[in-house]
Every structure is written in structure tokens, then in C-alpha cells.
């Protein structure tokens, strides 16, 4: 049992990584990005393409893909999401849903339906493990993913609380109009936040490709896991995202012990329980559902 718990906690690191960008975009820009999973798969394909075509290690490839993802995030916010957000809360959801379809089919057209993986390009890291006391084997990649999640979330927390830009992003998240009145360029803050979110998506896509296989339509389940982790942990808190990821992964791991099909069902069951508890205590609004702080400023 202790082995399953350790594996679940480590898998939670991956879910926290994939949920991080989703909850960050929602908490700052109030946009639910339904293209989130597809963008992660796009990043995985970009790394796979660099590795297979130019023999670039996926870890080195991140030096190219992460800035590219940041640029995509910035452009998406500036030219697509910002405009669609002016049309109300529903329009960005529809816009990102359409974007996900475009990305999925673009990847299908370019790379076909074959499943791919980055595992062949990272040597033995994809299957190497350490033996811990009690005959617990932990995968090196899983530990790296978990450490990356903790460092990323901690770094983001420090960035948001200790830097001028971080404070500007938080102010914009809380009240964009008043942020402008104190000298914050809310458009710029949102675009930078979208760029940061896409960098986290790029990282999640890299680990998706390293730990599993992916195909052009693999984005939807990743979006589902991200959404479940964000709801369980609460999108208003970065560390809550880690907790949400761990709870989801533990539920899946323990569910798999109960029944061979229990992996997904266990996760969905915990998600639904949290969802019903949240809805019964906070009402039907997304703010309560995702445990976002109040936006009222006085």
C-alpha cells in the first residue's frame, strides 16, 4: 500500500504541472482555456519533432520550445483571448474550444494518427528507478517531475509575491480597472501571465511525452486531468494545485488497486465528491467551485 501511495504522490506532481497553467490563466484572466491539453500535446510534438528530426534531446529542446510556448501564450492573449473576453464569459470558452479542434487537427494532418513518445530520446531515464527502504521503487523520471512541479510552483509563488511584475499580475487579476489607475498596464500583465501559463503547459507537455505516449487527440484527457486537479485543489492557490494533483493521482492509483478499470474511475469519483461538496457549500458559481478569492476591492 505504501508503494501505491508514494507512486500516487509522485504522479500528482505531473498533474500539478498540467493543472498549473490552467488554474493560473483562470485565476488571472478568468479564462477557462479548453485548448490547454491540446497545447500541451503541441509542445510534446514540437519536442518529438526536434528529437526525431535533429536529434535534439528533449531537455535541450525545452530551451527552444518553452520560449516558443511563451510567445504563443502572449500572442494568444493579445490577439485572440483578450478580444473574445470582451464578448462575455462564454465566448473565450467557445474560442479555446475551437482552438483545441484546430490544434488537434493540425497535428493530425502534420504527424498522422500514430502514437509517439519522447521516452526513446531520454535514454534509460524513462524506466530507471531507485529502490527505497521497504522495497519501494520510485521512477527517476517521476521524482524529476515531482521536483519540477514543486520548484515551478514555489518559483511562481515567489515571483507573484516578491516582484513588481508579480504584484502587477495579482493586481490585474483582482481588479484590472483599478490596476490601471495605479499605473499597471493590465493588457501587458495579462499577456505576460498567459506567456507564463504556456511555459508551464510546455513543461507539462514535455513530461507527458516522456512518461507516456501521445497522439494528436491526446489533449482532451490531459485537459480533464488538469481541470479535475484544479477544482480539487482550488484554482486560487498554487500550492492547492499541487495538493489537487496529489489527491487526484492518489485516488487514481488506489482505484487501480480496487479494480483494473478503477484508475480513471477513482479519480473521477473523488473529483465528483469534491465538486458536489463545493457546489453545496459555495453555490453554482465558478468562483466558489474553483475557490477563487473575492474580487471586490473595498
Amino acid at each position, binding site marked *: 500500500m505504501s508503494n501505491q501511495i508514494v507512486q500516487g504522490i509522485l504522479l500528482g506532481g505531473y498533474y500539478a504541472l498540467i493543472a498549473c497553467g490552467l488554474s493560473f490563466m483562470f485565476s488571472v484572466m478568468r479564462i477557462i482555456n479548453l485548448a490547454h491539453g491540446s497545447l500541451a500535446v503541441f509542445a510534446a510534438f514540437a519536442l518529438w519533432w526536434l528529437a526525431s528530426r535533429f536529434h535534439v534531446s528533449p531537455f535541450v529542446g525545452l530551451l527552444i520550445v518553452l520560449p516558443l510556448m511563451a510567445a504563443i501564450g502572449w500572442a494568444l492573449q493579445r490577439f485572440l483571448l483578450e478580444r473574445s473576453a470582451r464578448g462575455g464569459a462564454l465566448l473565450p470558452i467557445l474560442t479555446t474550444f475551437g482552438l483545441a479542434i484546430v490544434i488537434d487537427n493540425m497535428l493530425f494532418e502534420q504527424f498522422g494518427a500514430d502514437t509517439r513518445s519522447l521516452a526513446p530520446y531520454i535514454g534509460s531515464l524513462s524506466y530507471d528507478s531507485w529502490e527505497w527502504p521497504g522495497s519501494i521503487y520510485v521512477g527517476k523520471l517521476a521524482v524529476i517531475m515531482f521536483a519540477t512541479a514543486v520548484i515551478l510552483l514555489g518559483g511562481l509563488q515567489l515571483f507573484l509575491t516578491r516582484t*513588481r511584475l508579480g504584484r502587477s499580475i495579482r493586481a490585474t487579476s*483582482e*481588479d484590472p480597472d483599478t490596476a*490601471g*489607475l495605479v499605473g*499597471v498596464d493590465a493588457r501587458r500583465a495579462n499577456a505576460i501571465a498567459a506567456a507564463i501559463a504556456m511555459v508551464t503547459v510546455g513543461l507539462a507537455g514535455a513530461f507527458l511525452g516522456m512518461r507516456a505516449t501521445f497522439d494528436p487527440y491526446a489533449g482532451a484527457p490531459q485537459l480533464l486531468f488538469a481541470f479535475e486537479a484544479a477544482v480539487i485543489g482550488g484554482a486560487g492557490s498554487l500550492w492547492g494545485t499541487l495538493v489537487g494533483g496529489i489527491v487526484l493521482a492518489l485516488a487514481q492509483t488506489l482505484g487501480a488497486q480496487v479494480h483494473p478499470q478503477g484508475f480513471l474511475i477513482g479519480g473521477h469519483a473523488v473529483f465528483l465528491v469534491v465538486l458536489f461538496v463545493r457546489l453545496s457549500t459555495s453555490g453554482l458559481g465558478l468562483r466558489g467551485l474553483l475557490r477563487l478569492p473575492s474580487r471586490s476591492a473595498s
Partner: protein
Amino acid sequence: MSLLSVENLVVRHGLLQAVRGVSFTVQRGETLALVGANGAGKTTLLRAIAGAHQPAAGRVLLNGADLSSVPSHKRVGMGIALVPEGRKLFVQMTVEENLLLGKTAGRAGDWSVSKVLEMFPNLKPRRHAKTGHLSGGEQQATAIGRALMSNPDVLLLDEVSLGLSPLIVDRVYAALQGLIASGTTIVLVEQDLNRALSVSDRVICMLEGRVALEGPSNAVSRDDVTKAYFGLHRKSPGSVPA
């Protein structure tokens, strides 16, 4: 040249014309009080000067520079700071973080967190408290401090006494007197006529989006302003007819 000029400003909220062709100037170091009943257009006028509302006509000039196409965040960098009605603090952030946000525009000047805390000593022990947990007076002090942190040429104050106890209002106004004495240029929207007249050099009374009365505060009586306030009298000794 006037520090701030408002020329024939018209601001609409949809079909409603909230400000109807208002013009006035503010000299450097002057304190101008804007008074008027609820709905007279004072807050809209102040927010239009700060760039929060786009005027339908007219223009705002700062040191002769037309601000018509300048967004609100850039106006802060040019020297306009607004203390909005209701404070509008970032309640998930601490007092210090709110104050530091005032520095975002990067304008050079003397104001710092420690100077604000000297001006409002009651904020010192609350420096790391979230502003959502502060009293109304502490919140108002933080809002004024945040605006001062941008080292403004013109400080726009909207209803600073609203919702505060008389004792707290006295403290806030004592701090404002210090700012006025130091030569800070202030445009003050205030419902309390006595306070508005006592701290300002000049007063403008607005009625239904227009200037109903304008004149030096020491030459305008409370009775004159009250009549203009209710639209009963548009001229008074020492006033400039609107």
C-alpha cells in the same frame, strides 16, 4: 500655463450624459474642491481625468499635453493619481504590497513606503496585513498612500470621508492638510461642504453634469454653494457664473 486643464469635457454612460461640457483649470499647488449632489457628475469627471472613462468630447491637458489618447496607466506615469471612491484596494494584498503597486509607473520622487507610514503611523503595525482586514480609516490611508507612492503632480481624491467616522475623517483631513501645506496639487471631490471649503483654494459646485458655481473658497459662502447644489441659485458674490 495651468498644471491641469479640462476643456469642454463631455462624458457619457451609455445614453446618459454624466458630464456636460465642463471646463476648469488647476494651478500648481492649488487645491480645488468639487462639490455637488449625488449624480452631479463629480466622480465621473474625476475618473475621466484619470483615464478610467473615455470622454465623448472635450479634452484633458496636463502641463499642456493632451491626454485624450493616453490610457489610465500611462497617465499615472505622467503625474495623475486617483484615490478612487470606495478606496478600491487590492484586498488580497497587504498594505505594503498595495503601496508598492503605486510605484509601478516608476515616477521619480520622494515618496516611499516608510514616508507613507510616517504620514499614517496607524498603518505601521498593519504593514503586512491584507487590506481586506483593515478598518475603513486604515483602508483610506492606504489608498491615499498608494496614490502618493506614484509621486503625482496632481492628486485626485474622490470622497475620502465617505463611510468613515468623524474622528477618522479628522485624521485623514489632518494628513491632507499636511499634503496641501507641502504644495501638493489636489482636486478633491467631497460631500462635506464645510470640509471642502475649509481646505480648498477654489470650489466648483456641479449640478446635473454642469458647473453651477465656481469661485474662490474664501469668497463663496456655504449658503451660495448650498443653493447651487440644489439648483436654486446660479450666481453668488465672488463667484464666476457657469
